[in-house]
């Protein structure tokens, strides 16, 4: 059975959760698509607020104050940038129980162009503090994150891609997505640990982990500052050098946060660089243009290792 894309998994999981939690409200900004399952099952708790992202976040704040748990979904660029002031005030400063589900993270918008890409959102949201930031990979992890968000009173920013479908890495059913996940057994003699965030990065790192016995692969689902602090000891035990792979700019990305948290370690970044993605093409095409991907990462690993492959 094929996996659902994360956006579809979100809609389906939220609809399931709403059966037992009458406080869940689903808000969309004209980007949720027709025949939204939540709307079909719970029309009284579904609101398409139209193209009004900033008002939507503030309206979510009023709903939260009234005791509801609003999930508001739009594209990452509009949630993190257009509605940034509302996110700062309602989620960051006031800690309202609002869950933002931001699709089209990174350059997953492909040929839609730069207005619909978002390589800055983690930096923006991270800056506001107190917001739990999750970048799930695959259907299962997305479902788990949505469950965790619904059960938590914390504000959430959940970053999803567009329509790609991936099988999640195997995770113990009893563990939270807040826990660091190593792929396979941790190789005690590996000098380098790849740290993957988000779907494309995790796929690439998983492939390299399968091919290269001198690397470990740690997948981070949550990348807010508090969650990263919790990973510190486990990461330090895995290697002394880290290469963080994330579909984001370097500025404000997870690599920079980890570098501050791990001053004794070498922390490098494989990211989307500083160019604007001006060309069309698929998600993969745009990533390639930005120098992000399997081949580029393989070269970077080789360069880090030097001739003797000693990191």
């Amino acid at each position: 059975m094929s996996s659902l894309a994360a956006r579809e998994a979100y809609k389906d999981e939220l609809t399931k959760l709403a059966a037992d939690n009458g406080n869940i409200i689903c808000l969309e900004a004209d980007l949720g698509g027709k025949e939204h399952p939540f709307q079909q099952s719970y029309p009284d708790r579904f609101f398409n607020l139209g193209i009004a992202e900033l008002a939507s976040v503030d309206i979510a704040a009023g709903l939260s104050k009234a005791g509801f748990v609003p999930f508001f979904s739009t594209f990452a660029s509009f949630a993190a940038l257009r509605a940034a002031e509302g996110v700062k005030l309602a989620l960051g400063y006031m800690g309202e129980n609002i869950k933002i589900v931001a699709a089209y993270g990174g350059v997953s918008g492909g040929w839609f162009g730069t207005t619909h890409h978002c390589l800055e959102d983690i930096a923006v949201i991270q800056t506001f503090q107190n917001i739990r930031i999750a970048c799930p990979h695959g259907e299962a992890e997305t479902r788990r994150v949505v469950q965790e968000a619904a059960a938590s009173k914390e504000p959430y920013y959940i970053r999803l891609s567009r329509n790609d479908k991936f099988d999640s890495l195997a995770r113990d059913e009893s563990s939270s997505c807040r826990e660091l996940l190593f792929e396979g057994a941790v190789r005690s003699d590996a000098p380098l640990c790849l740290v993957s965030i988000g779907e494309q990065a995790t796929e690439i790192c998983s492939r390299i982990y399968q091919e290269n016995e001198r690397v470990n692969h740690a997948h981070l689902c949550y990348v807010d500052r508090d969650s990263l602090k919790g990973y510190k000891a486990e990461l330090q035990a895995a290697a002394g050098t880290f290469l963080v792979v994330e579909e984001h700019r370097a500025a404000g990305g997870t690599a920079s946060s980890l570098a501050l948290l791990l001053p004794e370690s070498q922390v490098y970044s494989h990211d989307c660089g500083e160019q604007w993605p001006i060309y069309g093409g698929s998600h993969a095409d745009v990533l390639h243009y930005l120098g992000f991907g399997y081949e580029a990462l393989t070269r970077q690993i080789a360069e880090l290792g030097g001739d003797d492959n000693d990191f």
Partner: protein
Amino acid sequence: MGTLVQSASHSAEFEQLLAKAQAARSSIIDMAARETGCHIGGSLSVIDLLIGAYAKYHQDANTSIVLSKGHSAAALYAALYQYGILSDDPAASYGGADSLFTGHPNPKLPGIPFATGSLGHGVAYAAGWALGQKLLRTSGLGIAIGGDGELQEGLCWETAQLVQAKGITNFIYAVDCNGGQNDGLLADISPLPNLRERFEAFGFQVKEIDGHDLGQIIAALEPDGEKPLAILAHTVKGKGVAAIEGNPHAHYAKISEKIALKWKRGLQ
């Protein structure tokens, strides 16, 4: 509150309300005499709206009142203090180190549901609260008290659009129409022609009142249940202090204690 309106100029209850408004004005003047000064012009123009709104609804747990034109925090603090929602006198520490009485409404204080000040947010917050009350099937209201300068923010109109679209009829947007903004007169900077017609076009019931007549204010703060309500409250910037009444440059002021005493003695 019906009796309050019917016998507006006679009842003891109404006299108490007038006294609250007068005491709040005095408190605002005292805040302007603090080291920081305060946004005195808009605070004195909006204080009667605040006193009226809290008189009518502050004991209704299902109704949320938010001051969206947050720069008039001095007025909000003064009103909340008059109603016992705040126990500490804001004029004693406004703007000072370690004081929660910051220059824009501080949500760490009781009775302040949202951090307003950057304009328009309180309007959308109140709409969300009202939507929540509809879902909960209470009779509660979302009340935003804003300003005419604030209406230059697109967020206000995004919200008006949504209030209409989602049938949020338990929503009141009371606009303190004092005609001024930070740098001068609205009329000179970005006028708001046809304001009544604009709100009507967004599906609002519109009431225009004297924003300093507490009887009119209290009577107006009652939506009809069929439409959201916009109250265009015509006010005077600096109302009550002859020296600054109607002066657009009295948006923010820092005054001496001597002047404060003089202004308080002369409160009209």
